[in-house]
């Protein structure tokens, strides 16, 4: 059988002869299919042996179009006229997708569609001829003109899109006008929580404990907010300061900001554009308040800052002008991965109270490190401060923690995520170390590709069942611990499948004290005794057989977890009866044999006879 990657239609095709009685139901002559097209769907009742062509005829009258406009897609396969629907595996209740090609059979964009007209008739021929090259080329060729057409046409919409990008001031203004945002912003406590509980913020605070002082000082926060809002000024500052070199002098006449504090920081700004984050963190000792900027520039502790600022005038002015608003940090994305400068502490003179400088990274313009950056008006620039004067307060997310427990949960989950992996790993490693025999078995386990694959398939279902944050686990775990997790899961699964698996694994695991003695209903240990020789003797073929059993078992588990609780006695009651009738009197032995052979009576009989020494 050639190696065809085929999906359900083929499988259904081959599966059908073996009979799917469940699907046939009552009316085996008429099938109800759902036809989905362009966002709507309708039911159609058709006869079982309808050919695709006939179906298309029906559809063309229904949708009022020509037959050659119709393209039917089922499970990703194009349906050809000569097939019958049942051949393609279309059963009751299945959905067939329909695409009604436009009359010109052209693509959406006007420009390049001519080319496609010539391709369209070729399309079906290609399919039938199976000329793979023919498929690619026209597709490739037509792609580019369409692309260029796309680009051409999208100029206008593109700018429109860009206008909607979060970074733009208009958008920010729009955002701020939203009353719910204003409401959120005006809740001081919320904003404080918001900022302080952002993980990045917390990281920042760990590295720079002084930063936490910032948040506690509400005045500073207010200042920050107000100063941060003036995006235009920030840009101006940046442009002004960027070309300058490191200034020794605090004042830059161009700054006209009135603050001696500006220049140095802005220089740093220019440089810091490409500096990495550590520097930013280092420098973010304190952003605001009077001439904390001095302290900031020198990377000193906040305490100095909070002590009476040397030059009281600017901060005073600032404070006067500041409305009573809580802090936000301005987020401004400049480029991927780079922190960008957003807020600047601007002089009070320049503070326009335009709500223009607030942005959240709504549109996904930011990478994980988009930071709202505070640019403190720096004081006299010292050369040592190529440090970025941007305290990096990443509150890109308004962690408005209405629900504090959620916060903790988030952190907990993140922490527990690592914990889980380390726990499991730790446990497993210990276990393996203590039990070299078990370790050998585990290695065998791993080396059986089919089994590990089964386990892998099991894993998502398993996780769902256990209601773990499957996403976190699945995605955040390093591969190694994930593999080990799978193994552990698989082994645990086997343990719960005691009746079936224990005959195979138990002898090894029991001896190591890993598996508890089977708590199932066979207290009689005698049967086990001669199950062991079964396993011990011809290890390989038996192992394979049993592994096949295990695999099947696992597979059936995946499909139907409800099978689990059924006791073997019930499942095999029929076989038990037949065994009894044949004269195998040992009830327990029969049961064991049946379990080991998965209910295969004849195999069980062979087993019993062997063990009884016939």
């Amino acid at each position, binding site marked *: 059988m*050639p190696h065809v*990657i085929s*999906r*359900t239609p083929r499988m259904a095709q081959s599966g059908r002869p073996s009979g799917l009685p469940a699907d046939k139901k009552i009316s085996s002559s008429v099938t109800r299919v759902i036809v989905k097209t*362009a*966002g709507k769907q309708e039911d159609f009742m058709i006869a079982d042996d309808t050919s695709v062509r006939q179906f298309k005829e029906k559809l063309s009258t229904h949708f009022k179009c020509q037959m050659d406009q119709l393209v039917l897609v*089922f499970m*990703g*396969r*194009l349906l050809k006229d000569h097939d019958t629907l049942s051949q393609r595996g279309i059963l009751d209740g299945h*959905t067939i997708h329909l695409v*009604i*090609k436009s009359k010109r059979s052209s*693509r*959406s964009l*006007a420009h390049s569609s001519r080319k496609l007209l010539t*391709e*369209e008739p070729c*399309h079906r021929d290609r*399919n039938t*001829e*199976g*000329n*793979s090259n023919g498929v690619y080329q026209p*597709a490739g060729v*037509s*792609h580019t003109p369409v692309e260029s057409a*796309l*680009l051409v046409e*999208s100029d206008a*919409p593109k700018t*429109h*899109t*860009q206008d*909607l*990008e979060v970074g733009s001031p208009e958008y920010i203004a729009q*955002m701020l006008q939203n009353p*719910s*945002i204003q409401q959120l912003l005006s809740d001081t406590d919320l904003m404080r929580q918001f900022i302080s509980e952002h*993980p990045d913020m917390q990281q920042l605070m760990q590295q720079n404990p002084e930063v936490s002082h910032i948040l506690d000082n509400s005045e500073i926060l207010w200042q920050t907010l107000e100063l941060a809002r003036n995006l235009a000024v920030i840009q101006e500052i940046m442009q002004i300061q960027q070309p300058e070199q490191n200034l020794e002098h605090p004042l830059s006449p161009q700054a006209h900001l009135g603050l001696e504090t500006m220049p140095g920081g802005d220089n740093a700004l220019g440089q810091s554009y490409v500096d990495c984050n550590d520097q930013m963190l280092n420098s973010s000792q304190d952003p605001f308040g009077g001439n904390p900027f001095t302290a900031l520039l020198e990377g000193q502790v906040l305490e100095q800052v909070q002590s009476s600022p040397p030059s009281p005038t600017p901060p005073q002015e600032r404070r006067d002008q500041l409305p009573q608003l809580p802090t936000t940090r301005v987020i401004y994305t400049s480029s*991927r991965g780079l922190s960008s400068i957003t807020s600047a502490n601007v002089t009070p003179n320049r503070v326009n109270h335009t709500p223009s400088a607030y942005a*959240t*990274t*709504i*549109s*996904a313009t930011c*990478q*994980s490190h988009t930071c709202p950056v505070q640019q403190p008006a720096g004081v006299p620039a010292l050369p040592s401060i190529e440090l970025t004067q941007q305290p990096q307060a990443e509150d*890109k*997310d*308004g*962690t*408005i923690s*209405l*629900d504090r427990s*959620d*916060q903790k949960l*988030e952190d907990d989950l993140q922490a527990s995520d690592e914990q889980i992996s380390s726990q499991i790993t730790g446990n497993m490693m210990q276990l393996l170390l203590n039990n070299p025999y078990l370790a050998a078995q585990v290695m065998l386990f791993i080396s059986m590709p089919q089994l590990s694959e089964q386990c892998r398939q099991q894993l998502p279902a398993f996780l769902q069942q256990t209601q773990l944050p499957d*996403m976190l686990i699945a*995605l955040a775990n390093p591969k190694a611990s994930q593999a080990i997790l799978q193994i552990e899961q698989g082994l645990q699964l086997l343990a719960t499948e005691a009746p079936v698996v224990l005959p195979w694994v138990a002898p090894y695991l029991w001896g190591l004290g890993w598996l508890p003695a089977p708590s199932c209903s066979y207290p009689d240990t005698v049967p086990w005794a001669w199950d062991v020789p079964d396993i011990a003797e011809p290890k390989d073929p038996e192992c394979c057989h049993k592994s096949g059993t295990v695999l099947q078992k696992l597979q059936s588990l995946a499909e139907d977890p409800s099978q689990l609780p059924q006791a073997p006695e019930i499942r095999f009651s029929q076989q038990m009866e037949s065994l009894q009738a044949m004269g195998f009197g040992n009830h327990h032995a029969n049961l064991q044999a049946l379990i080991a052979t998965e209910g295969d009576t004849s195999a069980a009989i062979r087993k019993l006879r062997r063990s009884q020494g016939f």
Partner: protein
Amino acid sequence: PCKSYPWAEITLFPVWYLLFLRPVLSFLAYPVSSLRCRHTSIVVHKDEFYFGSSGISSCPPGGTLLGPPDSVVDVGSTEVTEELFQEYLSSLGESLFRREAYDVFENNCNTFTNEVAQFLTGRKIPSYITDLPSEILSTPFGQALRPFLVSIQIQPPGGSPVGRPNGQS
């Protein structure tokens, strides 16, 4: 990696979906505990397609400003050719996935990815992705923020629109 089977007269194109766990609604993600926003887009015929508040867009895979995805998941293969797919997208773009039809809860990027994946391969996107809106709405925070969320524009920049412009036949 298109596979062609000349003897079977079919050519298969692989289909993937890209999953971005990075917060699209970044400020939303953290307070709502473990909910990270899951943005998905579908990749077929060497293009990435996604749905945002300005309609269906396409770009080279990983070409939005979101950058490379957190995971690339194989959905399967499809026989649907590129041109047919464009037709299909246009029809979607005029009906179910018009620009105005974007609803962050009911009809979002994941809805689109799910729909297209089903068309292309018959398979769906895992439910933990498509269930995100209901997860959010089940928290009081999500409910509170709902009016705001509905009003904002969510569109990863970097793509170009797909589908017939409004009003054009």
